[in-house]
C-alpha cells in the first residue's frame, strides 16, 4: 500500500529538484580570460603554484577545440557568456559550524532530502554539500578524522594538506587531457578531497551532493580521491539543478588513485535537470572521470544517469599495476529530447589485470542514447581479461540506441569478450502485466528496473532504492 502510494505520488510529479533557492550570491560577470582565472584563484586564497597550474591549463585550453566525435548534437556553449564563479554571499566569511550556515541553504538541502545536521543525517553517510562554486558544509569530519580519513572541500585541502593535493592533482587527468578537462583545470571551483591512509577501511560511506543554483553559471567541480595502500572507501555523488530555460554547463573532473591493494568504489546518481518535454533547457554534462589502479588494487565505477540534456562521460580505469581490477556498471536513461554518449575506457597495462563492463542503456521518447567504450590490452598486459556486456532497451519507436565498442588487443594471451543486446519493452510483456491487473506505468517501471537489476545491486542499499524511484520519475509519460 505505502509503496504504491509512493509510486503514485512520484509518477504524478515532474522533475522534483527543479526549485530555485532565493539567496544573494556573489556572481562574477560573464567572460573568461587570465584575469578571471587569477580572480578565482585569489578568491580561494590559493598558493602561487596552483595559480600557475590553473594558468597553464587555461593557456592549453585556448588552443584546443571542442570535441565533436560524440553522438550528440547541441549548440556549442558560448564560453564568454558564462559566469565562472558564484557563491552565496553568506558564505563569504566561512561559517565555523552548521549553526552559522545560512538557514536558506540548509533548507535547500533538506528539501532535496539531504539533511546536513548530523543528528538528523543518515547514519553512516558523511556528506559534503557543494552549492554552485563553494562547499556549504561537510558532515562527520571529526569522526572521520579519528580514523585518519581526510574528507573536506578541495579548496580547504589546498591549505591544510598542500603536499597531498600538489602530488596528486592532475596526476590521473592532466591539465591538457581534453577540452573540458583543461577548462575545468583552469576554473575549477570546489569539490571534494578524500584521503584514506594506509590500511584504513573508511568507517562510513562518503558522499558529495552537487547543486547548481545560480542562472548562467557553469559548475566546474574537481574531486580527488586517494586511497593509500590496502585502504578501502565507498563514495557516492548526487547532482541536481533548478529548472531553467537556458542550458547550463557542468564540466567536472574526478581523479581516483588506488594504491597497491586499495579499493575504491565510486557511485554516481546523476539527476541534473534534463530540460523540458520539448527539449528546452537542461544541463550540458561534460565530465572526465578516471582512475588509476596500482598492484592488486580495485576500482569500481557505478553510475545511474537519468538527468542532463546532453551527457558526455566515460569513467575510466588505467589498470597500471599487475592483478588490478576495474569495473564499470552503468544505467543511462534518456527520455524526451535527452542525449547521452557515455561508457568507459579500460586500459590494461599490468599483467593479469581484469575488467568488467556492464552497461544498460534505456531510451524513451525522442532521445538518443549511445554506449561508447574502449578496451585496450597493452603489450605488457599478459593474461589480461575483459568482459563487456552492453544491453539497450528501447521504449517507443522514436528513440535511438547506439553502441560504439572499441577493442585494441596487443597481447596474444589477453582475452576480450563483448556481448551486446538490443531489446524493446514488448507489447507481450506489457499485456501480461496488464492482464494481471498491473497498470502500464507500473509495468514499464517494473520491466525497466528488472533490466537494470545487475547494476542496481552494485549501489549502496539506500541509493539503490532511490535509483529505482528516479527511473520511475524519469520515465514519466514515455508510454502512450
Amino acid at each position, binding site marked *: *500500500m505505502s509503496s504504491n502510494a509512493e509510486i503514485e505520488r512520484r509518477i504524478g510529479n515532474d522533475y522534483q529538484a527543479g526549485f530555485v533557492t532565493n539567496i544573494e550570491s556573489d556572481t562574477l560577470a560573464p567572460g573568461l580570460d587570465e584575469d578571471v582565472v587569477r580572480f578565482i584563484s585569489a578568491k580561494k586564497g590559493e598558493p602561487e603554484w596552483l595559480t600557475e597550474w590553473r594558468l597553464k591549463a587555461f593557456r592549453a585550453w585556448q588552443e584546443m577545440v571542442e570535441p565533436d566525435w560524440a553522438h550528440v548534437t547541441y549548440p556549442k556553449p558560448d564560453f564568454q557568456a558564462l559566469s565562472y564563479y558564484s557563491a552565496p554571499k553568506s558564505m563569504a566569511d566561512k561559517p565555523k559550524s552548521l549553526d552559522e550556515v545560512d538557514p536558506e541553504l540548509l533548507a535547500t538541502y533538506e528539501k532535496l532530502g539531504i539533511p546536513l545536521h548530523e543528528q538528523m543525517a543518515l547514519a553512516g553517510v558523511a556528506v559534503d554539500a557543494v552549492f554552485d562554486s563553494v562547499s556549504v558544509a561537510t558532515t562527520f569530519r571529526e569522526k572521520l578524522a579519528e580514523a585518519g580519513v581526510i574528507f573536506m572541500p578541495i579548496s580547504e585541502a589546498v591549505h591544510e594538506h598542500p603536499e597531498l593535493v600538489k602530488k596528486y592533482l592532475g596526476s590521473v587527468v592532466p591539465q591538457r587531457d581534453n577540452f573540458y578537462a583543461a577548462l575545468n583545470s583552469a576554473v575549477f571551483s570546489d569539490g571534494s578531497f578524500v584521503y584514506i591512509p594506509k590500511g584504513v577501511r573508511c568507517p562510513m560511506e562518503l558522499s558529495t551532493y552537487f547543486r547548481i543554483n545560480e542562472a548562467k553559471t557553469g559548475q566546474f567541480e574537481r574531486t580527488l580521491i586517494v586511497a593509500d595502500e590496502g585502504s578501502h572507501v565507498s563514495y557516492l555523488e548526487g547532482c541536481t539543478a533548478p529548472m531553467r530555460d537556458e542550458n547550463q554547463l557542468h564540466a567536472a573532473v574526478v581523479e581516483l588513485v588506488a594504491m597497491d591493494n586499495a579499493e575504491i568504489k565510486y557511485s554516481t546518481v546523476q539527476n541534473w535537470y534534463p530540460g523540458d518535454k520539448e527539449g528546452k533547457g537542461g544541463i550540458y554534462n561534460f565530465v572526465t572521470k578516471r582512475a588509476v589502479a596500482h598492484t592488486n588494487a580495485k576500482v569500481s565505477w557505478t553510475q545511474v544517469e537519468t538527468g542532463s540534456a546532453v551527457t558526455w562521460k566515460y569513467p575510466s580505469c588505467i589498470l597500471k599495476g599487475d592483478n588490478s581490477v576495474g569495473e564499470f556498471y552503468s544505467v543511462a536513461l534518456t527520455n524526451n529530447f535527452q542525449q547521452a554518449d557515455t561508457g568507459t575506457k579500460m586500459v590494461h597495462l599490468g599483467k593479469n589485470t581484469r575488467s568488467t563492463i556492464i552497461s544498460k542503456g534505456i531510451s524513451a521518447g525522442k532521445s538518443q542514447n549511445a554506449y561508447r567504450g574502449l578496451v585496450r590490452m597493452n603489450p605488457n598486459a599478459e593474461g589480461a581479461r575483459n568482459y563487456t556486456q552492453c544491453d539497450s532497451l528501447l521504449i517507443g519507436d522514436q528513440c535511438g540506441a547506439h553502441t560504439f565498442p572499441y577493442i585494441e588487443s596487443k597481447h596474444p594471451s589477453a582475452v576480450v569478450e563483448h556481448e551486446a543486446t538490443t531489446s524493446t519493452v514488448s*507489447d507481450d510483456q506489457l*499485456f501480461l502485466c*496488464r*492482464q*494481471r491487473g498491473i*497498470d502500464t506505468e507500473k509495468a514499464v517501471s517494473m520491466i525497466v528496473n*528488472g*533490466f537494470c537489476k*545487475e547494476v542496481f545491486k552494485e549501489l549502496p542499499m539506500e541509493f539503490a532504492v532511490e535509483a529505482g524511484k528516479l527511473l520511475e520519475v524519469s520515465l514519466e509519460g514515455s508510454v502512450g
Partner: protein
Amino acid sequence: MISIKNLHANVEDKQILKGLNLEIGPGEVHAIMGPNGAGKSTLGNVLSGRDGYEVTEGSVVLNGKDILEMEPEERAREGLFLAFQYPVEIPGVSNLEFLKASVDAVRAHQGKDALDSVQFLKLAREKCKAVNLDASFLKRGVNEGFSGGEKKRNELMQMMLLEPELCILDETDSGLDIDALQVVAEGVNAMRDPKRSFIVVTHYQRLLDYIVPDYVHVLANGRIVKSGGKELALELEEKGYGWLENSDNGAA
C-alpha cells in the same frame, strides 16, 4: 456470470469472430474446441482486451458490467484471468515482485488491504507447493528460463493467488507432457467453485479427460457451430472437425 452476444472481432482488418454467442453461468466449465484458425485464441484475447483485437459488433457483459470499454487491467481487476498459451518472459523482474504487484492491484480494486511482504511470501510459497513448483521459482525472473511445463504451472499459480471469477485457459495443454498436464488439471479442478467459471480452450480432447467440462462448444469460422455436453468432445475426437466446418459453410 458472463454473457457474450453476437461478438464480431477483427485482427488487422480481417474478421475472425463472426457473431459468437455464449452464456456461462457461475460455477460452470465450458470447453471451446475447434480446428486451427477457428478463432479460439482470438476469443481469449478479445475478452481480455488485448491491443490489436478490434471488436466491431456485439457485447460482452461480465457480472452485469459491459467490459468491452474497459482497459485490460480493469478487466483483470474485475476478475477476468487469461492463462496464456505462450507465457512471455520478463527478465530481471522477480516472480515474487510481479505477483505482489498483481495481487496488490487486484486487492486494491476490491477495497481490500494489501498483504504485507511476510504474509504474501507465505501465501506465494503455499501456492508454489500446490502447483509443484519449487519456492526458488519465486526469486527467478518472470518465466525467465522456465521450461514449457514450468511456465504453465507458473500461470496456474498466478491464477490461484488472484482467485479470479472467470478463468480463460488458452490451450493450456499445448507443450505439456502427461505428468505436467495432470498437475495443471488437478490445480484447475481444485479451484472449481460454485462462484467461479472456466472457459477451457483446447484443440485436443485429452485435456478434457482431466478437466471435465459441463458444456462443450465447437468454434469454427468465427462462430459456435455446435454445443453439447462432455460427450461431444469424445465424438469430435472420433470424427474430427471436418463435418462441422462443412455444415457451417453450408449455413453461411
